[in-house]
Structures are given as C-alpha cells and as structure tokens.
C-alpha cells in the first residue's frame, strides 16, 4: 500500500530525513518510535504532503503510484489521513459542517454527488457513538476551546468519517489521560480492517498497549535504525533509546 524508498527531506538546507525505507501493507499496524528530534513528525508531515518540507531524494508510492507531486488534499482523496499532534482551531465552523465539507470535497474529486443529508447524519451518529462523543460537541466550532483530549477524540472522529486507507496517528497519545486514551485506541481498533493500515507515531510505548503494532521501527537522526515486532516497544520502554544510537 505504502512504499517509502530512500526518502530524504528537510527544511531549506537542513536535512531531517536521511534515507527512510518503509513498506506498509494492507491490514498492518506499524509503530514509529524515537526520541525528540529524530524526525517522526517530519515523516508524517511529508507523507501527508506538507509543503513546508522539501523532498530532496527518494520516493513515496501509495497504491503503486508516486504521490510526491500531489497536494495534501489530493493525497487525502486517495485515502491518506493524518491525525495531528496539534489540531487547528477554526472558529465559526462547526465540526459537523467541517466534516460535511471534507467528505463532499472528496466525493466531488471522485466524480460523485454530495452525500445525501440523511446518510450524512446517520454516519455522524454512528461514528460519534463509536467514540463516545457528546453530540453537542459536534455543533461547536471546530476545536475551539476543546481540551487536548477532546481535540484528539475529534481527530479520530474525522478519521472515522473519512474512512482512510492509510491513517497516520501523529503523537495521538500526547495530552490524553488514560480513559481518553482507551476510548481513542478502542475507536482506532474498531476501524481497523484487512483493507486499511495504520502508522502510529509515538514517543512512548503506552499507546501501543492498546493499539498493538505488527511492526515497530525506531527512528534516530532521520533514519530507521532498528525494526522489530511489538516486543521491541517494551525493550525501548525498559532501556530507553540510548543503546541504539
């Protein structure tokens, strides 16, 4: 599904990613761990198409097509979703209206008509129940005045609505208490299928107790320095990152 080949990327002259290779197949969960500044968030931003970063070498294929030339919205239309570490507040636009706009933009790109209001409402009801969200919360301005936990739950709600093929969760556990973490993880697990894939980016092993990865990769200094199964996450929790440097 996703193939990253010798990816070099950075900001201006500063190289942050120095040759990343990664393959993610449908049905898999990959965790990318690493200390602060190792390039984790840069990697997720580059996959999602953030134009702040420049790709200097290598390629990213999604479903056997290079996506490097595509704008972030075009990547989203192909089925890539990124949950943000710091979701943006949009005053005056309710979460419901926002998600409607996003879904219909995707449908338009696929040559489909707008989703009928009835179907949209039904879907919103189902997905918000899945994440145990208060409905009132959906009519509030997007992320405005939301707590850290509410913002993250809202991210996963949007993911549930957009039904991506590849979901990248960037530090979704930061700022979550244990109850919120369980709800979010539970939502992600319910959305998991044989046809989609998840990349979990995290500093700590904690989230991986709930979203269990098939593969764990350690990123250091812009390169994947070690890959393994879920037991690698526990090893990192015990030993820290220093032994890998």
């Amino acid at each position, binding site marked *: 599904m996703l193939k990253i080949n010798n990816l070099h990327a950075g900001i201006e002259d500063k190289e942050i990613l120095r040759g990343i290779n990664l393959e993610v197949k449908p049905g898999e969960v990959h965790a990318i761990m690493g200390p602060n500044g190792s390039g984790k968030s840069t990697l997720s931003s580059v996959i*999602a198409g953030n134009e702040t970063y420049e790709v200097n070498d290598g390629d990213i294929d999604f479903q056997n097509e290079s996506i490097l030339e595509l704008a972030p919205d075009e990547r989203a239309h192909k089925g890539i979703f990124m949950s943000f570490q710091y979701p943006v507040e949009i005053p005056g*636009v309710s979460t419901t209206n926002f998600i409607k706009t996003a*879904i219909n*933009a995707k449908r338009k*790109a696929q040559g489909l008509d707008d989703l009928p209001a009835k179907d949209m409402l039904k879907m919103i009801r189902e997905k918000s129940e899945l994440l145990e969200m208060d409905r009132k919360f959906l009519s509030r301005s997007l992320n405005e005045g939301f707590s850290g936990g509410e913002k993250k739950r809202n991210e996963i709600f949007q993911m549930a609505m957009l039904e991506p093929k590849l979901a990248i969760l960037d530090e979704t556990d930061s700022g979550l208490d244990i109850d919120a973490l369980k709800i979010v993880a539970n939502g992600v697990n319910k959305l998991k299928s044989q046809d989609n894939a998840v990349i979990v980016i995290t500093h700590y092993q904690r989230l991986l107790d709930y979203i269990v990865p098939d593969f764990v990769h350690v990123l250091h200094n812009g390169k994947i320095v070690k890959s393994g199964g879920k037991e690698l996450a526990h090893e990192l929790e015990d030993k820290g990152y220093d032994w890998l440097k």
Partner: protein
Amino acid sequence: MDLKEKLVTSFMAFENKGNIDLDSKIHEIRTEAIEQFEKAGFPNRKNEEWKYTSLNSLVKNDYSVFPKGDATVEFKEVKHYFLHEIESYKIVFIDGVYSSFLSDTTHEGADICILSSALKQPKYKMIVDHYFGKISSKNDSLTSLNTAFSKEGVFVNIPKNVVLPKPIQILHFSTGNEKEIMLQPRNLIVVGENSHVQIYERHQSLSDNTVLTNAVTEVFAHKRAIADIYKIQNDRKTSSIIDNVYVQQKDSSIVSVNTFSFGGNITRNNLEFHQEGEHITSNLNGITVIGAKQHVDNHTLVHHKQENCESHEMYKGIYDDSATGVFNGKVIVDKLAQKTNAYQQNDNILIGDKASINAKPQLEIFADDVKCSHGCTIGQLDNSALFYLQSRGIPQKEAKALMLFAFCNDVVEKIKIPGLKPRINKILAEKLDVELGMDL
C-alpha cells in the same frame, strides 16, 4: 471650473429651488456650512486625517449635483439588494430622489419617512430645530458640504417606549442616468427613551457611470435606547462613498454601528460616538474584504465623557491584490470619565503581495481609573492551519476561504437582523470566490 467652485456657485440655485424660507434656522445652518466648505475646500493629504486617502481622482470629475429625478427602477431589478425575506419599513432613493413606489414608510407610533417632508412640515419644526446639525462636525469640510446641500434623506423619529416591530431598510440606487453624479443624502435619526430600532443601509449603483456619495447621518439615542445600524458597502468599481456618521448617546443607551465594506472605488467611513451620560455602551464593528485597486478607510472616534461607560470596537480586514486599507481608531477618555472600559481590536490579513494597510490606534486617556485595551495585528494566512484543512481533503482555495470566514466570524456573529447573517456570508463567499456548500 473645478468642483469646489461649481458646488459653491450652485448653492444659491439650490436654495432658491427649494423655496426656502430665508428666516428659517435651516437656511442659517446651510449658509454657515457652505461658507465653511468654501474656506476649507476638499481635504487633501497634508491633512493628518486624510494622509492615506486621496480624493484627487474623485474631485476632478464634472458631477451633476442636482438630481433630475426622472429615472425609474422596477422592484424586480433591485429586489436582491433588499433583505426581501423579512418584513421591514423601506425608504428608497433613486439618484437621490425619494421613490414612494419602492418605499414603505409610516407615521403610526413612530415617524419613519423622509427628511424633505420633515423640513417642510411645521409639526416637525421643533424636532428638526432641536437635533438637526447638532452633532455633525462643523470642522469637517465634507460634512459641511453635505449640510449645505442637505435636503433629502431619511428622517426617523421614534418617541419614548416604542420597540419597532421590524427593521428599517434604507437603499440608495444610482441608475447611471447621469454620466457623473454626486449625491449628498442626509439622515436624522432620533431614538426616544427605552425605544429600540434596527437599521440596514446600502448604497448601490446600477451602472458603471461614476457616482460619488457624500453622506451624513446623525443618530441621537436617548436614555436606555437601543439602536443597531448595519451598513453594507458592496458597490461597483466606479462608485465612491464618504460616509459620515455621528452618534450621540444618553444614559444607559446601547448603540452599535456595523460596517461591512466590500468596497467600490474609494470608501471612507468617518464614525464618531459621543457619550453624553453614564452607563453607555458603544459598539463599533467592521469587516473589510477588498481586492483589485479598491480602497477602504475606516476612521473612528469614541469620546468617553462621563463615568461607567463602555466601548467595544472590532474591525477585521482582508486585503487582496493591490487593495489598500486604513484603520484609524481614536479613543478619548476625559478626566471625568472614570471607570471607563474601552476595548479596541483591529486585525488584518494581507493576501495580495501588493496589498497594504495603514493601521493607527490613537488613545488619549485623561482619567486614571479606567480599563483601556487596544490591539492591532497584520499578518498572513497561517500555513500550518492551511495544511490541516487540506489534509482533510479540502482544496487549497476552499481551505483559504474557510480560514478567512473563521477570521471574520466574531464580527458576523454579532449581526442581529434575521436574514442579514446569511446575506453577509454569501457576499463573503462571492468575494473569496468559493462555493462552500455549507450553511455557516
């Protein structure tokens, strides 16, 4: 002959035409005003208040200054400029002349009619003598010019304890009957104790002929009166307006003036609030969204004179292409005006590489126990927010528009006339060139 000379020499003919009683107070006021205008002339950029707005390109035209009044307009041609979904009083002018056909006035419970009849009829003499020209500036040459030619406009007189059941719509249309026309509407609005009024005002040209409007409105709000005034400026590139509004408030009154400037050619708004009492609230809100070579200048003044009063000012601006904006917000707090709470915020986003804004907050505070805050920002769209929206599948253009909507939202939210909020959102979407497919 230049425009100033033309206007000064036209004055006599204007007065004669109106069959004016030469002993009347109004004649005296007009004569004084034309003298003041003759002395001062049109303002130029050497004047500090006009440093960033030049009228040179406007005063070189050969305007016709006496409306002929022979043009007609069908309602269906102009329906969409009205808030036609709601019940309202309507006062409509075509090329400066009152159109009874398109209007819907009243004298039941309140007078909602036209100034020319108020000036003529003896029963209004007391009110006119008491209020007319009392707060409009005598040192502003354009206001003086309007005063000299004041004859037609809106007259609203609401007695005590009347809550108007529906808003008043004031529309000025220019048909293009004249190649270049200068209009000088004059409005007098008196809101009695405990009375409430909502007003919607729009100036609209129906052709690409040149229009220059120099309007003056005086608003008097008595004790506990509430007045909400909304102005939509969304005219053609050949129309310019200088809109002078003077508000005087008494104890515990609340007056809000909301200015939505989507531009024309040159737009200049002079808005003054004079607080003559305690526990007064003055609200000044504005949104400016312009592009091309449009120019919008918002000059505001709030004068706090007594204790325990508030003012809340919030102006937002979005400037594309080579558009230019000016915000000059002056707040004066007199020595007597203790416990004043004055808030001012002016936020601007520059989209066009050649767009610019000159922003100038001016606070003159002579009291020592007050809460005054002001803030001014000039920036660009936040790229990380843009990326967030795009990553959800929203194309860049729509994503930018959504952010600009969000930027304007806290001003749009303050709109109280039903039907006006969706109207403003619709114009915003047109200006930002998007179909959002959502009801915001």
